[in-house]
């Protein structure tokens, strides 16, 4: 990599933003800090920022508003990692709907923050820019008889019965749904699905695909949704409809 990743930390607590900056720099990530939305905008204009760590609870313009504005700007805005005060479902849903790429609740483990930052950046770079989909507020993804709730992270079948997914299954399915009708190699899938517990996740992609097929009640011999492309990888072969509400 030619240059170090540049992360902008927006938090009103001076100790926290300075400590996060020092921690990130100690781990080889370049970091800048901003105390509010005004400082954030001037830094975004001045420097090339790869990712914004945004606190939800800010005085004046709060994180939700800033997040929405960044997304609404239209120009290529960097990915956003939202810091929420509590692990509140409402905050989480709001943050994700406003276009945050991921969220982390306070108090967070610094290592977890670093892992998430790296996962988001890896995800953003795993695919060429034209394949990358902008994270936007699509709450429901429909395909075949299934609906994926992307905030609650579970499936709904034709009878509206909730079908749970494990973390790895959700990430894999999400990658497929974000890139339907594209052949994805095992390496790409592995890169894209390695999420927050990257070090723990070492199962083969094949095993995970067969697990996901079972969850989708898909036949391995004649799959309706995830087809195997010999010596290349997998392709999600059902059309996906986005629904916002």
């Amino acid at each position, binding site marked *: 990599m030619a240059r170090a990743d540049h992360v902008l930390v927006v938090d009103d607590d001076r100790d926290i933003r300075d400590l996060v900056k020092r*921690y990130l720099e100690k781990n080889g990530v370049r970091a800048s800090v901003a105390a509010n939305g005004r400082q954030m905008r001037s830094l975004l204009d001045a420097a090339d920022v790869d990712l914004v760590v945004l606190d939800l609870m800010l005085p004046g313009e709060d994180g939700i508003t800033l997040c929405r504005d960044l997304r609404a700007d239209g120009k290529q805005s960097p990915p956003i990692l939202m810091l929420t*005060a509590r692990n509140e479902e409402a905050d989480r849903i709001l943050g994700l709907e406003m276009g945050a790429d991921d969220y982390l609740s306070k108090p967070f483990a610094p290592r977890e923050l670093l892992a998430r930052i790296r996962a988001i950046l890896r995800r953003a770079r795993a695919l060429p820019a034209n394949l990358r989909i902008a994270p936007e507020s699509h709450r429901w993804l429909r395909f075949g008889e299934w609906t994926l709730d992307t905030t609650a992270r579970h499936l709904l079948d034709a009878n509206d019965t909730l079908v*749970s997914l494990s973390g790895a299954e959700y990430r894999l399915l999400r990658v497929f749904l974000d890139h339907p009708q594209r052949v994805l190699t095992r390496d790409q899938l592995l890169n894209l699905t390695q999420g927050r517990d990257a070090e723990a*996740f070492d199962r083969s992609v094949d095993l995970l695909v067969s697990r996901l097929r079972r969850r989708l009640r898909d036949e391995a011999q004649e799959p309706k949704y995830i087809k195997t492309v010999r010596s290349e990888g997998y392709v999600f072969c059902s059309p996906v409809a986005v629904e916002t509400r």
Partner: protein
Amino acid sequence: MSGWSRTLFARVVLILLVWLIAAQGLAYWVVMQERSLAVGSMMIDYAAKDIAGAVALLERLPAGERPAWLPKLDRANYRYSLAPTPSTATPDTAFTRAVLAALRAALEPMHDVVMRGNDAGPQVGLQLQDGTPLTIALAPPRMRVSVWLPLALLVQLAILLAFAWFAVRLATRPLARLAAAADAFGSRGSAAPLPENGPTEVAHTAAAFNAMQRRIVEQMSERLRILGAVSHDLQTPITRMRLRVELLDAGSVRERLLSDLHAMQSLVEEGLAYAHSAHAVEEGERAVDLHALLDSISCDYADAGSQVRLNPSVGATVVTRPNALRRIVVNLVDNALKFGGDVEIELRAGPGRPPTIAVLDRGPGIPEAELESVFEPFHRLESSRNRDTGGTGLGLAIARNLAHSIGAGISLSNRSSGGLEALITLPPAEAS
């Protein structure tokens, strides 16, 4: 006492029934007594005159013609025969006395009238002038009871039952409503106020209940506010401390500080979760594929490198709060992992029985005496006093609160093969 007779309804009906039967019986007895007195004396006088006539007729008839006449003289209540009178005595009753007196008045001094009797009843004996014995068998007067009388009594009883039912319902419906409201408040935390209308006593009780419920809700939400505020305000300093510690040079002090901070953070999180779990009703109920839920949980554990697996089972769909149920299972699995290592999850479902989730481990189990008390918040087993394995002591308490909030039962037992079995018994599906 059987279950039915313990109900207020049964008791009120029983009291009213006894009262009705006693009152009716007494009235019936009084009326009958009155009637038998009036009718009885009239009938006996009439019968005495009739018998005197018959005796006079028999006196006049030649002895050979008398048997042919006897059937014509018979009446419903007395019959004549020319057989000798039995010599046995008959019990002395008001009736026999009255009959004897009336007959003597009508027949003496011409005839000596005696009262005798046998199994057939009282018999009056006398001798005709020529010495022929005449016996009159008496049938005691029977008061005819009309058919409609018991029918009327039955109709009265039916009306009584209907009114008793109505009255008792009037009295017990508010009680049932109160019980349902208290139940809903206790188990599901719903604090809908009771309507304060109806009779004065009922309205008063409802108002008192509502006031009590309001006070409890206020106290509970204040407790929640305090817990929330404390843990929220602890979050920022903990975050700062974690960052500072991470910036220290690696070493044993840093690791120990990190583990202390980790313990503090879990206590804050679990404390908040416990406060929430006591009345977790925010989440809506929905149909959930139980097998997928348990499979995804066991896969998450397996992906994280823990020895957790789901035993093969049939599928089942239940209507419940999925996040609450997930948290219950996760807490039980965490508990099993802490003590037991190798953990199995089992879904037991089938027609005619409520779906049950079992979390099995192969650890040392729990002493029988403590199987219930481990659900108390901050209860720790002797064997887990040290903090490395002890956790916060809130995991099982949270699980129990959440189980109650979804109407499920939760229990622990030691397995005969060693290890602990935790059971979640879900409420039976109403309609599937």
